[in-house]
């Protein structure tokens, strides 16, 4: 079985969706647990993809192609996974703060997180503190990610954290933030949990937070 997992990771890294799917099916037929296929085959492959991306060997569209392969295979596994397992590594709620319409970076982070096995709920841009609070209540994510690209919208991050505190749900969720003007210092100052300088480090930090 280990060999099969290895092969699955290999074809996933090569971006061959049909083969990933048929290997996943084969593993199931041979009696492997869905959770093992996910962890040892698919996510193991995505791990390598993540490392290669960080090293500058893979381009973003290649990473997204690999992620698509993973999700293709997930369609087969999902009915066999418990709800908790189907959520993958964890649930990640993300959005760009109020007044800010920049979303390229946020979208990239979302896609990379999905590739790494997170279930991502993307609220979009121009999201008010109150909308974040409602969404946290509704989706109960493990992590909330805030994006801001403008110095003028950075204060919205702090206000969002404040609003979560007021709603009494700040401690139910880890908070990450990013965007070009955002810094580690800033996040510490406003009482967030982690900073993501780019998509690759956002994934690493997110994994640490849910570990």
């Amino acid at each position, binding site marked *: 079985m280990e060999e099969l997992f290895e092969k699955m990771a290999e074809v996933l890294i090569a971006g061959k969706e049909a083969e990933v799917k048929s290997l996943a099916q084969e593993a199931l037929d041979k009696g492997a647990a869905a959770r093992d296929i996910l962890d040892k085959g698919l996510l193991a492959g995505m791990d390598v993809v993540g490392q290669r991306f960080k090293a500058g060997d893979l*381009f973003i569209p290649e990473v997204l192609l690999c992620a698509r392969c993973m999700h293709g295979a997930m369609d087969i596994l999902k009915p066999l996974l418990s709800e908790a397992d189907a959520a993958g590594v964890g649930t990640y709620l993300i959005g760009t703060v109020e007044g800010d*319409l920049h979303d390229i970076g946020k979208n990239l982070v979302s896609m990379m997180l999905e590739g790494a096995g997170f279930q991502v709920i993307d609220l979009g841009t121009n999201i008010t503190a109150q909308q974040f609070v409602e969404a946290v209540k509704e989706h109960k994510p493990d992590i909330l990610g805030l994006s801001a690209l403008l110095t003028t919208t950075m204060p919205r991050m702090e206000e969002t954290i404040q609003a979560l505190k007021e709603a009494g749900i700040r401690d139910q969720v880890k908070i990450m933030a990013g965007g070009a003007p955002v810094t580690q210092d800033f996040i510490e100052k406003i009482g967030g949990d982690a900073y993501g300088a*780019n998509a690759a480090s956002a994934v690493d930090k997110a994994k640490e937070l849910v570990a």
Partner: protein
Amino acid sequence: MKRISRSGIGTTAGFGLAAFSRDELDSIHYATLQILQDTGIKVLSENALEIFHGGGCEIERFEGYGIVKIPSYVVEECVFWAPRTIVYDARNPDDDYVAEPNRVGFTTFGGCINVIDPLTRDLRRATKKDCGDIARVCDHLDEICVAERVVNSTDVPEGTLSVHNLEAILSNTGKHIFLGADSPRALSVMAELAAVCSGGMDNLRKRPIFTANVCPISPLTLPTNTCDVIIEAARLGVGVMIMPMSLSGGTSSATLAGTLVTHNAEVLSCIVLAQLAKKGLPCTYASTSTILDLRFGTSAIGSPEYGMINATLAKLAQYYRLPSFVGGGASDSKVPDIQSGYEFTLSATMSALAGANIVFGSGVLEQGLTIDYAKIIMDAEMIRMIQIAIKGIELTDEKLAMDVIHEVGPGGAYIAHEHSLLSMRSQSQAKLFDRRSRSDWLEATEGKSIVARAYETAIDILENHQPHPLPDNAPKAMSKIVKEFEKELKGGL
């Protein structure tokens, strides 16, 4: 020997760039018309939707936005209404900038948030003081034809940024100013500031000394503020500069040709809105589009593609007979090093050769986030060199100098000839770059790097340059207007 007049011979003046034939530009134009008519533009402003509707566009409404489909005849007519040539009026009339076809000027990048402190050389957040200081340096530099809001005043209350920016810039330069507006209301306050410096609103209408920058959001989206600022600019008679920043591979097609088409559609849709709001409103065709580096996920403004995209968009602006304001000379390096110099030169030269009216990008580092004083000074030196280069080589009888060549003859010397005396001052001249011998260089500079000397030049300008004076009452009046606006916003919150 006699050389009498020649009959018409084919001549070119200056060096140019052969980017796209007329037919190819036509193909981009037709592709754009198709996008505007069939795919449409997403518009988030209710006011704008009404104006588009009134202008004969088809509107499909969804929750919170509308898709506007613009018939080709509306596009073509509106483009025709936009003024052909624009003089960018300046607070100091000596600095009025005439943007006739193929006149090439340069300005800095804009909207940065960080600055490398010229004294400590530390990276820090830019303040209102930086915004004014950098404007003063740009006022001094002849190589800068108009002033940008180079950095944002990040130390002022929310919603008032653009108003503070303009106050700082007006106080420090007499050149025409390009800057964005936080809101339509902020724009009208900005017009009040400018009016105070131009002798009243009527004078400002005759000679608008600033232009409002607006940015569509790629792909094919006009956010509320972009639309409403255009509409307010039309009301005030302030021209608009329309600058998409498509990132090829991210917010536009990964192929550059497709990027040109959507970029063009975004600019033209804003021109349609501006012209429907006020026929004849000055519109500047702008761009700072580039690629999204698909390995690092960064907006790579130091890439050759930045030059390629922006040079061709300058050609496209000429095709529409509109003044152009396109990228060239930006860098992704984090410090003013050799990478930043190479990157500056490639894309700035391309956009200049293409005949862009204003080449936008000097002084900037780090994908547009950081501005550096030394870089502004070094880039100005290179701008002078580029401006010499694009003039090309003139082939007149006088310049061919046949008589002189005969006279000096084989083995002779030109250096003492009167002809050299007459021509010498047209040579390019290095001030900061060094062309001396090694020993002279050592003596003159003590081996100090160009970057260090550039910082010194910048500091010297900051200490000594006096900008064109403001009218006596203006500083007080401006600060009152700004304070009242701050109060107004606070009251509103």
